[in-house]
């Protein structure tokens, strides 16, 4: 059994809705946009875990909350990856020296394992982020056009004061570019983003994430802005990196096709919650939740012989600041029942590792045995 690297438990990210002056005087209830509202999953070492869902379902926010690029409102994010022991030991020692905790508690903390990312101080978070990196969606927007590729890739080193001198930095940048498939690195280092193609830009983004030698990468729609013809090159690059460096990925995408061919496990999100999660093959080939079924049925298929009845849902996703009661999906669900309108369905297992949150399946006896 592979070890966990990241565990997310009941993660919540709520954004306050700004109130107008009058509203605040009338002291109306503070409203929240519940972008992520209780998400639980674990990612194992060397695993590619995929979050899929429509825009606004909270998949990107989940990824950012794990890295604390947005502060979570509630829940837990724990890191179990390499370097955990040293970091924890050091933290416990400091706390002991300051008399903040006693020996007993120190032991308990060490035993529990996992660094609680949410509790880290700003300084520690900065060093933690060397292990947790992100690749952004749009290689056309996320690179500074005025910086050379060398400067872009070297910036994380400068920020984290890594590398004693410029020569050492250059060596690391060269290696990162090489790892990202920009070969030979010397040819790319001193060019600017506009001088390279879209696929190469995304490789620069990958190099920028790799330069710190991370263990876990959040890849936020890394191929959605690229032409189809070069998408799989970037996907293959990430697979290679997993092989050579033992990286783990949280892969965020709206494209179920990409999720299908690329990930080990997939979680389908709807309005801030995971509705179905399991091994990719099971979820895509044998979806159980009505939402997943609909999503898969509407993927365009070129060959008419493969075409199945499309389940086109009416309407669009509801507003996350006004989440429907009961099952969040009930206003659009083709098989809605009375219970769905009032009670939120629990997550139950339909087969090993494959869990679904739907009353229909609970009624059919899923998760009983």
């Amino acid at each position: 059994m592979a070890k966990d690297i990241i565990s997310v438990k009941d993660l919540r990210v709520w954004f306050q809705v700004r109130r107008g002056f009058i509203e605040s005087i009338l002291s109306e209830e503070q409203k929240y946009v519940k972008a992520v509202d209780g998400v639980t999953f674990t990612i194992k070492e060397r695993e590619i875990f995929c979050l899929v869902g429509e825009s606004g379902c909270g998949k990107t926010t989940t990824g950012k909350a794990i890295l604390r690029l947005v502060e979570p409102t509630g829940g837990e994010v724990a890191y179990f990856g390499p370097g955990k022991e040293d970091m924890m030991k050091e933290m416990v020692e400091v706390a002991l020296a300051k008399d903040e905790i006693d020996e007993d508690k120190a032991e308990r903390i060490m035993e529990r394992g996992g660094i609680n990312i949410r509790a880290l101080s700003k300084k520690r978070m900065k060093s933690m982020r060397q292990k947790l990196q992100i690749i952004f969606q749009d290689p056309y927007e996320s690179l500074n056009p005025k910086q050379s590729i060398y400067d872009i890739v070297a910036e994380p080193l400068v920020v984290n004061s890594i590398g004693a001198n410029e020569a050492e930095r250059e060596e690391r940048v060269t290696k990162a570019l090489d790892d990202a498939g920009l070969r030979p690195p010397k040819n790319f280092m001193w060019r600017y983003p506009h001088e390279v193609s879209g696929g190469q830009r995304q490789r620069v983004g990958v190099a920028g994430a790799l330069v710190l030698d991370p263990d876990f990468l959040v890849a936020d729609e890394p191929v959605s802005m690229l032409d189809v013809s070069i998408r799989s090159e970037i996907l293959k690059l990430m697979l290679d990196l997993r092989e050579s460096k033992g990286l783990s990925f949280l892969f965020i995408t709206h494209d179920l096709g990409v999720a299908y061919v690329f990930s080990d496990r997939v979680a389908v999100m709807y309005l801030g919650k995971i509705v179905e999660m399991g091994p990719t093959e099971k979820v895509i080939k044998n979806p159980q939740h009505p939402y997943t079924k609909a999503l898969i049925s509407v993927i365009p298929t070129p060959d008419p012989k493969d075409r199945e009845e499309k389940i086109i849902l009416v309407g669009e996703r509801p507003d996350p600041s006004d989440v429907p009661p009961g099952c969040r999906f009930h206003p659009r669900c083709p098989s809605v029942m009375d219970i769905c309108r009032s009670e939120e369905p629990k997550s139950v297992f339909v087969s090993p590792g494959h869990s679904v949150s739907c009353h229909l399946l609970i009624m059919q006896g899923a998760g009983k045995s």
Partner: protein
Amino acid sequence: MALLEVEGLRTYFKTQEGTLKAVDGVDFILEKGHAMGLAGESGCGKTTAALSIMKLLPANGYIAGGKINFMGQDMARVTGEKLRAIRWRDISIVFQGAMNALNPVKRVGEQIAEPILLHEDVDKEVANKRVKELFELVGLNPTRVREYPHEFSGGMRQRVMIAMALACKPRLVIADEPTTALDVMIQAQILDLMKTLQRELELAMIIISHDLSVLAETCDTLCIMYAGKIVERADSVEVFRNPQHPYTQGLIAAFPNVKGERVMPGAIAGNPPNLIEPQPGCRFAKRCSFTKDICLNQEPPLVEVLPNHYAACHLVEPR
């Protein structure tokens, strides 16, 4: 007679580096009530080819040659009032990124009524009535005609754009990446709507997309473009079942198929060529895995290789 006949269309752009040959010899025929798809990577000239038909090119773009025969008129030469009379009344367009193509400070109803009032001798009342009908046609609540674009969601705005394109009952609608920015569920809704409208109104459509499977579901015929040229043209099912050109084969293989086996999609290595000084021979030669000597020297013509199936490749025998 065909509704639209494009013959040897060449559209060039003047740039600082030289003349960019965005579309370099494109032919196709579109019958009344048919839907045609234009597919290809970004920069292959698919949008430019379609915009040339309406003559909506940017200031540095011009039609350098060829004929665009639309209902007996050569659009390549029509100008001034005559052109304005055709635009939107006979040919309309659903722009790419419809979310941002609407005027944010004007009510959507007024925006749709504008071309009706401009092109037809009707009063406001008739136009408003038509707007309401159009709203119903595209599946929007007609009571919302007085709302502003920001009050609609992305998918609904796309419906507004479609209603606007249909305002003057055109013969031909060009849809430029109509679903690209939309979620897959909304995409399915919009494609469904477009198919229904096309059937019911006997519309001819040109749909531009980089997503081959979207086109396969909505179009009768499919043109695959590469570097300003059509490299393959056939019935859309035929293109998928029996692709002849190596580029088409590569493109199809690059799409992950959830209905099929779980295999990593293929990639087409390399980048599209520079269109300012295109290399001699086949433009795809540098990225093709079957390149022979002839490919580097001689440009392959688009010829019929199977019944009603055209491809431009030295490797496939003409019929």
